[in-house]
């Protein structure tokens, strides 16, 4: 992976200006259903802020989500929202984006939705590099179903299906996405809202598939079960787990091992699938291809 220290978002953080989150919410559905302190709400703000800054019209915005807590987030956005089946939002979004290149298509998925049941769709979406932005809200657990182990649950953590501690290794979703060929891969924690917003901006503006892992917190289920404290502690903990490699070389060693790299972790300028497909199809058409 590229050095995150030299590859942080190039955007200047701009003042919120006239960004008013309520302009982007379905106010009649508020307050939302998420538990107190759930990081998904913070991620949602960052997303809407990014959309505002990019000047994307709500009418031209399509949000696709899957099943789970993350799947419910999209419904609060005042846009065309699609709450799809478990694991399949990326596939659905693939169809939507190919059919409607004019729409900005954003997928909100969770760690289980995206990596377990939807893992196949993820790697192929990465490979295809269609211009979709996928926000994977990673809270390390199946929250909606009551707290079962997920593909990103850290080792030794307690869940309702690992009552003596998880022994399965977790995915590094970003490395997975990068290896699968995603055009842009990034990770951020919810604590850093403007940075997260910038990362999402990067993701949306990148011509190709953007995979963004948002480290979110599940306080009510995961945090409580593992005694990780309340939301403030969990959010701060995520941040302190951020130790880009260069942070390791600080004041005196040994420092804690690096856990998370953030920022834009990989970027490639592979052709965007939709553009490539349409160009290819146009050539085939002028040649009068086929019998």
């Amino acid at each position, binding site marked *: 992976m590229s050095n995150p220290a030299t590859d942080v978002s190039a955007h200047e953080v701009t003042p919120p200006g*006239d960004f008013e989150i309520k302009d982007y919410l379905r106010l009649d559905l508020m307050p939302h259903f*998420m538990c107190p302190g759930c990081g*998904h*709400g913070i991620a949602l703000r960052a997303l809407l802020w990014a959309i505002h800054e990019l000047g994307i019209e709500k009418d031209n915005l399509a949000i696709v989500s899957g099943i789970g807590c993350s799947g419910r987030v999209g419904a609060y956005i005042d846009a065309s929202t699609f709450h799809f089946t478990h694991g399949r939002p990326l596939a659905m979004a693939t169809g939507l984006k190919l059919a409607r290149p004019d729409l900005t298509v954003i997928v909100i998925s969770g760690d289980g939705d995206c990596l377990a049941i939807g893992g196949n769709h993820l790697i192929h979406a990465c490979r295809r590099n269609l211009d979709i932005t996928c926000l994977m809200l990673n809270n390390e657990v199946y929250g909606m179903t009551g707290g079962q182990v997920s593909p990103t649950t850290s080792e030794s953590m307690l869940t309702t299906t690992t009552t003596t501690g998880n022994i399965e290794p977790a995915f590094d979703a970003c490395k997975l996405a990068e290896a699968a060929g995603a055009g842009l891969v990034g990770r951020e924690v919810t604590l850093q809202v403007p940075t997260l917003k910038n990362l999402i901006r990067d993701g949306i503006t990148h011509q190709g598939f953007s995979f963004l892992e948002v480290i979110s917190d599940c306080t009510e289920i995961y945090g409580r079960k593992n005694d990780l404290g309340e939301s*403030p502690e969990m959010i701060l903990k995520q941040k302190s787990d951020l130790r880009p490699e260069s942070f390791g070389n600080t004041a005196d060693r040994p420092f804690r091992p690096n856990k998370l790299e953030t920022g834009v972790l990989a970027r490639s300028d592979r052709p965007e699938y939709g553009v490539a497909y349409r160009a290819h199809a146009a050539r085939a058409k002028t040649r009068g291809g086929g019998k």
Partner: protein
Amino acid sequence: MIVGVGGQGVIMISKVLALLCQSQGYQVKQSEVHGMAKRGGGVFCHVRFGEEVWSPTIPMGEADMLIALEWAEGLRWLPFLRPETGIFIADTQRIVPPFACRNRAVGAQTAYAKETPAEILEKVSDGYALDAGGFASELGDARAANTILLGALSASLDFADEDWLKIIAKFVPKGSEKVNERAFGKGRDWIEEVRNNPDEMLPDAPPPAMPAMPAGDVEINLEIVDAWCKSCNICVRLCPERCLELNELQIVRLNDPDACTGCRLCEWLCPDFAITVNRVRLNNNRKGKREAA
């Protein structure tokens, strides 16, 4: 009197001076106060020499020379300088203390000394303001700044250059004697030059950018949607100014409006969008929401 900020080498300069004076047969008393000096506080050294010296400290208004290694510290100790005859030599280096950046209000400016060198030199009978650090860097060793000040100081005392350099050599790192010799000369030459050509002073630094909304013009107002707050405590606990609390109904409230700086962290971090930070311009009663710079 030699003043500066902890770690700058105030004690070193005063020791050089004290030792030199003693070697010239004077009685010398050199008084310093430390303990907190390491913690970023101001440091000051009284050096008194003469045939007979009583008090180790210089009475206020009786210092013949005030050598400041830092600009604001120089201003702080001005009352110790003899108003009619005192010589003031100050490095224009600014070490801004965190305290000067304490005011978090929108539009706040630093509490660092506002006076420009030109204004101060106007007030003292014989004053010099120089960028010793800059000169030292030109010479190739930023650490030689203090020696430049010693050179500047030497111009007002009647000791031979060789004696100065002999003592200085005892205090500087091995191998840097030559640089420091040049630095000493530089300080001395500069003073001579300025004395011959009083108009040649340092240009004043350009004034800092002024905020569009000067402090006091803006009031921060937190718009809280009670029904949306889920009492998660994130805002309360992560507010840098600790100015939020949950009220008896466990709904977030701004409990210390004066402390709130409108930094928006609570707005950003509220997972439930219950908080909106508004900046209200006071001088025209309309709600200046988001009236950013």
